[in-house]
């Protein structure tokens, strides 16, 4: 649903500049590939903070298409917030190119200030204006409109986020979730080219977080806003995104749909970020991996060309493993240390003889008890992913 006042991304109000043009001509900026019409496009971006030896992000490439919801998932300190601040214009890049709505807004020689980028930003701590009411907060970004049009816009935006009736409240009179909604309304009101969300749910308690996540996803879907979410919470990224960009230290390691990234992580690091798992060492031989937990069939992911005898790490996920009570003489077994009953499923913690702890999640039945020696296998003969060491 496009709000009546919303413009297409191509309406982005960045005046074409002769200076930028001249600079562009002289330095020959690589044009985006044909057919790629990204709303946000970062090419080989590097950003350094003064006084720091290593760049906060480096060789950073990301293209977000119109209407897409993309998450950047990474550990704290990986540089994901820096990437977002580069797009918003609060950090200058030392090399590479940043485009918003097709316009070059950041490079080593061009820097469009944040106020001219028309990007909606929702901060981790919301950063609402404490001296203004809810309505005035939302109105803040509409300064270019005549006064009567402004009030016409505020009402539907507040209604969309479910905050009608709170117009004259002050920020400190709202709960955390309500402040969050106002922050989103404020960011969306001026019809931004893209919406950037910086860890928007991290200040909320768990239950509220899930509810609000769904609401925001719905709001974003209704407005058709192109959205970039930065988070360290994999559930958040998996549940909301069309695509997820998983960050290693200062660059994007893998980008794809949630399913792609979950099913085919390109590295042990990505696997650990995208879902709970254990990585246990093993040896690859003839299509199987031999580990202390057992022998498992393997699956070849994108870029692991394993040769026989190679040391690998095998990805063990609780939902992909099966256990059964082991016979007296069977090798490669572990001991059930803990069983956590969760209703439909039970989660078992299996201590291997080396001390490694594996988790197995299965339907509750079949009488396996704490203290049992068990044999581990992959469920339904599904293939285990291995990464070269």
């Amino acid at each position, binding site marked *: 649903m496009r709000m009546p006042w919303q413009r297409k991304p191509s309406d982005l109000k960045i005046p074409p*500049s002769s*200076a930028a043009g001249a*600079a562009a001509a002289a330095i020959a900026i690589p044009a985006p590939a044909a057919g790629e019409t990204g709303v946000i496009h970062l090419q080989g971006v590097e950003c350094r903070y003064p006084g720091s030896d290593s760049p906060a992000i480096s060789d950073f490439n990301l293209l977000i298409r119109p209407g897409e919801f993309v998450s950047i998932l990474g550990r704290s300190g990986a540089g994901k917030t820096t990437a977002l601040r580069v797009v918003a214009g609060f950090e*200058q890049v030392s090399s590479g190119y940043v485009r918003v709505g097709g316009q070059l807004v950041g490079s080593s020689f*061009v*820097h469009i*200030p944040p106020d001219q980028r028309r990007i909606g930003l929702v901060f981790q701590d919301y950063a609402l*204006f404490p001296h203004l009411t809810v309505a005035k907060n939302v109105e803040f970004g509409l*300064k270019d409109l005549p006064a009567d049009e402004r009030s016409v816009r505020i009402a539907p935006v507040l209604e969309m986020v479910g905050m009608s009736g709170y117009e004259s409240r002050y920020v400190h009179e709202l709960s955390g979730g309500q402040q969050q909604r106002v922050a989103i309304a404020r960011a969306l009101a001026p019809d931004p080219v893209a919406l950037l969300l910086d860890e928007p749910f991290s200040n909320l308690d768990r239950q509220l977080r899930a509810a609000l996540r769904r609401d925001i996803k719905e709001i974003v879907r209704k407005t058709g806003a192109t959205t970039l979410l930065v988070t360290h919470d994999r559930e958040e990224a998996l549940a909301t995104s069309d695509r997820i960009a998983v960050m290693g230290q200062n660059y994007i390691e893998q980008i794809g749909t949630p399913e792609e990234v979950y099913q085919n992580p390109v590295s042990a690091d990505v696997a650990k970020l995208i879902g709970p798992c254990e990585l246990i060492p093993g040896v690859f031989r003839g299509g199987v991996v031999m580990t202390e937990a057992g022998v498992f069939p393997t699956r070849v992911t994108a870029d692991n060309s394993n040769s026989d005898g190679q040391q690998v790490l095998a990805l063990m996920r609780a939902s992909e493993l099966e256990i059964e009570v082991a016979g007296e003489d069977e090798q490669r077994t572990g001991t059930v240390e803990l069983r956590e009953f969760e209703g439909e499923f039970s989660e078992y913690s299996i201590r291997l003889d080396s001390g490694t702890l594996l988790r197995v999640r299965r339907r509750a039945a079949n009488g396996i008890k704490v203290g049992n020696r068990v044999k581990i296998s992959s469920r339904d003969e599904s293939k285990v992913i291995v990464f070269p060491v």
Partner: protein
Amino acid sequence: MTISGVISTGWKSTDGKRPPAFLVASAAAVALAALIPVVYLLVRSVSAGSDWVDIIWRANTAAVFGRTFLLIALVTIISVSVAVPVAWLTVKSNIPLRKVLSVASVLPLVMPSFVMATTVIEMYSPKGVLQGWLSVFGVERLPDIYGLGGATLVLVLMTYPYVLLTVRGALRRMDPALEEAARAMGYGPVHTFRAVTLPMLRPAIAGGSLLVALYTLSDFGGVALLRYQTFTSTIMIQYQSSIDRTLAAVLSLVLVVIAVLLLLGEGFTRGRGAYHRSTVGAVRVSRRFDLGRWRWVGAAGVGVPVMIGLIIPVGVLVHWLVRGLLNDQELLPLLIPARNSLYISLLAALATVLAALPVAILAVRFQSRLSRFFERSIYIGFGLPGVVVALSLVFFGINVARPLYQSIWLLIFAYAVLFLPASVGALRSSLLQVSPRVEEAAQSLGRSQWRVIFSVTVPLVMPGAFAGGAMVFLLTMKELPATLILSPIGYRTLSASIWSAASEAFFAKTAAAALLLVLVAGVPTAYLTLRGHGDKADASDRSNEIGEPTR
């Protein structure tokens, strides 16, 4: 993108935070202006050539040095011993009338030293009021009030509120969990105070002591009336009695050196420990300590400085006024001085806060070597006694800015130089409470940096601006030496009127003018103190990380 966009940001490396040019330019102008007095004193002293050593000796400096330091040491030690218990009793205990006593114990701050001095002379001099009361018990003559004893009494009464404010702020912000942890580990209340509370208060006590010491160093009216010669009064006498002002300039420079040494000394006592809370999260309000029956004793204890520093002086003034009115003594036409004082103090407060704004924003938001330099230059005014600033501005006015000389603008300039640290300090602590994310949010909504400052930053630091402005207002009302030296001929303010009336022993006039001043200056002070978590207490406490002005 505009061409200026390319020029201002394009050709530099990734140091993203470049402050807007207008901010840097205005902060630079303010910093340079604040440095004028020192630069001028230096020029003046250098032009005296090698005579300056001679000059210093001729003025019998060593003895004055000794007297000044003795006074500073006494006043500081006694002020701290009065202020720390009063602070603890009014913040941490359940004494009766706690709120009233909190405000009243700060209010001696509004008494100008020369007013306090005249009332002290009236009360405690050998044939004063107190002697009259005591004659019932056969006391014929009290010890002489003039000299060190009287000067110490006056200055302690006026300056203990500085320590009180800083210590109170620190007590309020201290995490009660620290004391509770000590109690849980088996420390008794007294032991806890000694082992945890007092060490945590050390920076606040040091900061407050610095204010007291600098005030004592710079006071003129009080010590002059009590006939105790210090460095500042020597300079004033030199200035008023000789035509050649080189000596005054050289002595002023020595005074600056002493002030800087005091500043450095305070930094030295601070040590390396951390004093802020180590955890995030809201500070719980600490429970007040139940004193039981002793709470009445506590209240009486707080009442003593309130009685001696506020009630008795005001009582003496009222007594004089009534006696004068009954005897049909002619009162000065006070309306014009009162209006002048109000006008010039408001102007000074406004000018000072406006000048402080760019410096504070730059220092907090765009930290760099340059912004630190600007802020430091502002704090020069903190170490400069009013006499020094006024004298150097006289030289400056006569030789450089002739049109400004003998106008109120030079006077306002002097006040601004003297009191900039107060407003920068208050604005700084206010700014620190505004998240930079809020400003970024405004920018992402399409406002330029310049407009963000006016639509978001300035409204949000208004409490700090008001607190700083009120402090400047109060200090300007009280300031005497700068006012005496720089007021245009015929332009009388309240403080100048009080001074001349008191010097000529016109008690009714002194009383009327002084009561007016105390009333006008007392209202904003009481208001700020009453705001409980008082920005004033906080501002003065936080700003003394570098310092707060004293006069």
